[in-house]
């Protein structure tokens, strides 16, 4: 419970001595707000956090090693289990990496479909953030509302891909099948509802004074620190750095659609929240443009049965809802990769947590951790 005190000191304990001892408290691996099996060893002074040490690895499955033992294209379903809230972006990441390694071209229509699915996925993932963040701060109703709308996205994705969570719907060289009949209208219908619902969220949560006082000025991540730690996604954009892979290194057809990268300067929990809310609006914009511009054509490139890319190193980076998701593959010319490495955005973003937490209150812990929005599946891999 507290640090050991030597016997001679024990007799002369003053109030100051008692206060200077930290209480060590374990948050997780089973805790309602760690969003998975994350364990934080906190040293507390009352409600003040003196020190935080994250302990990860409870979900480690050795995916990277598993991938070394299988042919390239067999590895795509495993990536569903990385960031399970945005499985499609993992699929895209690994497929892009394999495509670069093997020099595979992707048909235009497939690229548009990929972007469409990616943005739907982003909305679904940010809605999970919104809901869990609301619960973390005590607004339980927000959770249900966000999940209600996420359900609409999942229904759409289910109709297109046939699965609700582990989609595995992006293949090396395209997507396995075209969009189902009438999918575009359904997406537009969803977009229409979702616009109104976003307004409602703003009314319920964003404008709420309590919510703002819980998030503003909390967990400030300065721009320099955000860069030096290599954070990405909404975390770095909330710190005033307009780093979005979709703009910095456009992939698929992101250079053909118009959208803004929301940036906030404050770097606090509030800014990270706002960035994600704004990103959902931008995703809607992208979806509408994609549905307008999508060309006809094939959706998949024919590939040989045994796919052997030439020896070399390739990497791909995409903007997953959590940040820069990067796959790196080393090929030695055989059907199996020599090495697959996954640069998980949550892994990097979480490493900044200890420095954010020092000196804050326990109650802010959940707000800060929630605002980083980690998924343990991709941290532990």
């Amino acid at each position, binding site marked *: 419970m507290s640090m050991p005190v030597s016997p001679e000191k024990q007799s002369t304990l003053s109030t100051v001595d008692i206060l200077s001892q930290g209480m060590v408290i374990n948050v997780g691996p089973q805790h309602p707000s760690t969003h998975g099996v994350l364990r934080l060893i906190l040293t507390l002074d009352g409600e003040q956090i003196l020190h935080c040490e994250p302990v*990860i*690895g409870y979900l*480690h499955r*050795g995916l*990277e*090693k598993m991938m070394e033992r299988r042919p390239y294209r067999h590895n795509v379903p495993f990536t569903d289990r990385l960031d399970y809230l945005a499985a499609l972006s993992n699929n895209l990441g690994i497929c892009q990496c394999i495509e670069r390694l093997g020099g595979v071209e992707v048909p235009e229509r497939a690229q548009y479909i990929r972007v469409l699915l990616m943005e739907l996925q982003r909305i679904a993932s940010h809605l999970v953030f919104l809901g869990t963040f609301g619960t973390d701060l005590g607004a339980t109703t927000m959770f249900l509302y966000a999940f209600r709308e996420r359900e609409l996205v999942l229904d759409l994705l289910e109709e297109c891909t046939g699965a609700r969570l582990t989609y595995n719907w992006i293949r090396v060289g395209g997507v396995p099948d075209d969009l189902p009949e009438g999918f575009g209208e359904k997406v537009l219908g969803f977009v229409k509802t979702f616009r109104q619902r976003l307004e409602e969220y703003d009314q319920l949560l964003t404008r709420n004074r309590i919510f703002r006082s819980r998030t503003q000025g909390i967990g400030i991540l300065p721009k320099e*620190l955000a*860069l*030096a*730690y*290599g*954070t990405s996604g909404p975390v770095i954009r909330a710190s005033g*750095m307009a*780093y979005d892979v979709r703009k*910095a*290194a456009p992939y698929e057809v992101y250079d053909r659609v118009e959208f803004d990268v929301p940036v906030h300067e404050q770097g606090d929990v509030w800014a990270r929240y706002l960035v994600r809310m704004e990103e959902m609006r931008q995703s809607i914009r992208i979806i509408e443009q994609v549905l307008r511009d999508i060309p006809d054509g094939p959706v998949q490139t024919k590939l040989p049965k045994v796919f052997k890319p030439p020896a070399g*190193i390739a*990497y791909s*980076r995409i903007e997953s809802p959590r940040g*820069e998701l*990067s796959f*790196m593959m*080393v090929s030695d010319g055989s059907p199996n990769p*020599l*090495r697959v*490495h996954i*640069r998980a955005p949550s*892994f*990097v973003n*979480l*490493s*900044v947590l200890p420095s954010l937490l020092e000196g804050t209150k326990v109650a802010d812990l959940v707000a800060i951790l929630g605002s980083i929005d980690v998924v343990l599946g991709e941290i*532990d*891999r």
Partner: protein
Amino acid sequence: MNEALQHLLKQLGEAVSEWTQVGANEVRLTVSPEHWREVVQFLHDDALWQMDYPADLTVWDTGTGFGVYLRLWSSVHNHNVIVLTSISREQPRIASLATLYPGLNWHEREMYDMYGVIFEGHPNLKRILLPDDWEGFPFRKDYVAEPSGDPLHGPQPVD
């Protein structure tokens, strides 16, 4: 990019054994492990590079040695640099960059965890994903994963 690359080669010509430019703003450098820290420090400090964003660091097992891969990005110039090196299997040691880029701290710990590569000068080099008492480095190609072992505490001897 070209100018910056020339500048780099002029300054650190002997350290960079191989370089290729990929696309407009990406370059791949192969360096010797002794110059690892020096090259990265240069990329970090030099005004033409300012590689301030540590994107990725990883290690792979080639069977005879370990390859090290570092990807940096510059928020100022939008340069991408991949720095590659290879280290021997017997002496898997390389200079740590964790003090230069705090973001590489966990990456280096993970690579130590999985490959047993010692990052010299790392402030807190211990296992990160696996339990502290795990034996061996499971991502090495010669690691024998015993499925009959206790999943929590590494491979157990099978009689």
